[in-house]
């Protein structure tokens, strides 16, 4: 039988899915054990048990100086920045994307401008943002928003333009105004795509968030990682990285669920 036709059964699927995770965990554990056998004080690859120990301390023990649990403060601060940045970008992308996709006037005026904007590397304008907006929250939120908005605009404009012209014409023969077509014909049809694009854009959004926090911040997941790096606190870094990964995974699943829940027609089509 050809390799392309060999399909694993359900137990094999589960085993194959778990395999890379288990392999990485085993490789880490053995590498860590090897290093610690040479030098019990090794900090670069802490033992799995020590990482769990650190995780328990980070998640539940309040800071001795302030009485707060920094882990949760970092999480809240970072999620707020990410939520604001992605939210602003999604809204901007949706509105401008719909306009470019539906209105020839907006397309003529904005399409090439957005295309040029999307070529600017967002991290290159980070110093400009810090200089203009200061080192506070605004600059970090702005970096995330600026980083992913052009992509979202282009994706939304593309999806809007994909709506069959027959539907737009049909809506006109039913007496719909331009606004009614945007709100009742185009908007619901691009929403599933917006959620999908936001899911894709969350990767870069995390990147911009951590980059901004690494450079100038007083709290946040990225800030903490880059702070404890100076003390070689690998156990803390690993816990934070795992936590960020878990958050990203949960947000992704939440968005996927929302898309299925609110736009069932898009799943069957």
């Amino acid at each position, binding site marked *: 039988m050809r390799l392309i036709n060999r399909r694993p059964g359900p137990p094999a699927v589960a085993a194959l899915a778990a395999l890379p995770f288990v392999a990485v965990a085993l490789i880490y554990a053995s590498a860590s054990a090897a290093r610690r056998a040479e030098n019990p004080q090794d900090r670069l690859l802490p033992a799995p048990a020590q990482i769990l120990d650190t995780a328990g301390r980070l998640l539940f023990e309040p800071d001795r100086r302030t009485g707060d649990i920094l882990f949760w403060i970092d999480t809240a601060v970072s999620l707020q920045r990410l939520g604001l940045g992605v939210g602003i970008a999604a809204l901007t992308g949706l509105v401008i994307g719909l306009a470019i996709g539906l209105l020839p006037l907006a397309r003529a005026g904005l399409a090439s401008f957005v295309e040029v904007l999307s070529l600017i590397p967002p991290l290159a304008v980070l110093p400009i943002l810090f200089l203009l907006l200061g080192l506070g929250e605004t600059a970090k939120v702005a970096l995330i928003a600026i980083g992913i908005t052009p992509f979202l605009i282009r994706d939304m404009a593309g999806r809007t333009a994909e709506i*069959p012209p*027959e*539907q737009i*014409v*049909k*809506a*006109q*023969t*039913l*007496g*719909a*105004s331009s*606004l*009614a*077509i945007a*709100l*009742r*014909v185009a908007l*619901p*049809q691009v929403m599933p795509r917006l959620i999908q694009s936001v899911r894709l854009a969350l990767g870069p959004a995390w990147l911009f968030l951590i980059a901004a926090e690494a450079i100038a911040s007083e709290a946040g997941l990225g800030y903490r990682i880059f702070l404890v790096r100076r003390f070689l606190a690998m156990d803390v870094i690993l816990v934070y990285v795992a936590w960020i990964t878990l958050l990203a995974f949960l947000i992704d699943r939440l968005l996927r669920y929302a898309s299925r829940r609110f*736009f*069932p*027609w*898009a799943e*069957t*089509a």
Partner: protein
Amino acid sequence: MSFVTVTDLFLDYDRRPILERVNLTAREGEFVAIVGASGCGKSSFLRLLLDQERPSRGTILVDGQPLTGEPNRQRGIVFQRYSVFPHMTVRDNIVAAEALGANPLGILGRSARRDARARAEATLERIGLAHVAGSYPSALSGGMQQRLAIAQALAAKPRILLLDEPFGALDPGTRLRMHDFLSDIRTETGMTIFMVTHDLPEAFKLGDRVIVFDKTRWDPQAPEAYGATITYDFDARHGGIPYQTPKEDPHVPVPA
């Protein structure tokens, strides 16, 4: 009294002629079937009637008035595909026919929506789609989707119904049932209908008139040099026997 008057219509795409010297008058309530080879401009002609495109020269008058430059509620349309909104349920697709044009937002108020829903239910009952009122169009068969599309177009109460190969993607049995459906609607509403079709028997069966688009001039060195025009205008009433109302049996088999 002519209801639709097309005078000396020309249509070019980038100076490539598609239609030339098209003249046509149609009475109110007439069913005009339009046939012709692929690429002969019959769909373009329908788009001109719809006002989705503008002619290069010539005028189209409906009820003595020129078209306004964009599609509107006066002329409803059913395409071969994509005529219903995939993100609305079957019921909401009918409601949308009233809601979209009700105000600039295209959203009905609470009580108006309830009334429109009730009317939509009645419409769906009549066209036999009441049992799928809450489904999305993607769950419907092709014939049901086209029935929905026709009912949706009619719910906006247009004066002219334009059909662009509405049954082209349907299987023969479904197509026959759609013919009956369309004939019933026509008897009910007395609507003026223009229908583009590839199917000659269908054109003669449904239409009062069958008009044929074709090129009258042909240059083998430049097949695109000339556009198409109306070359035949058949009277398709009485089974296609033109301009006769036989008083005695003509012994000509008349297709049903």
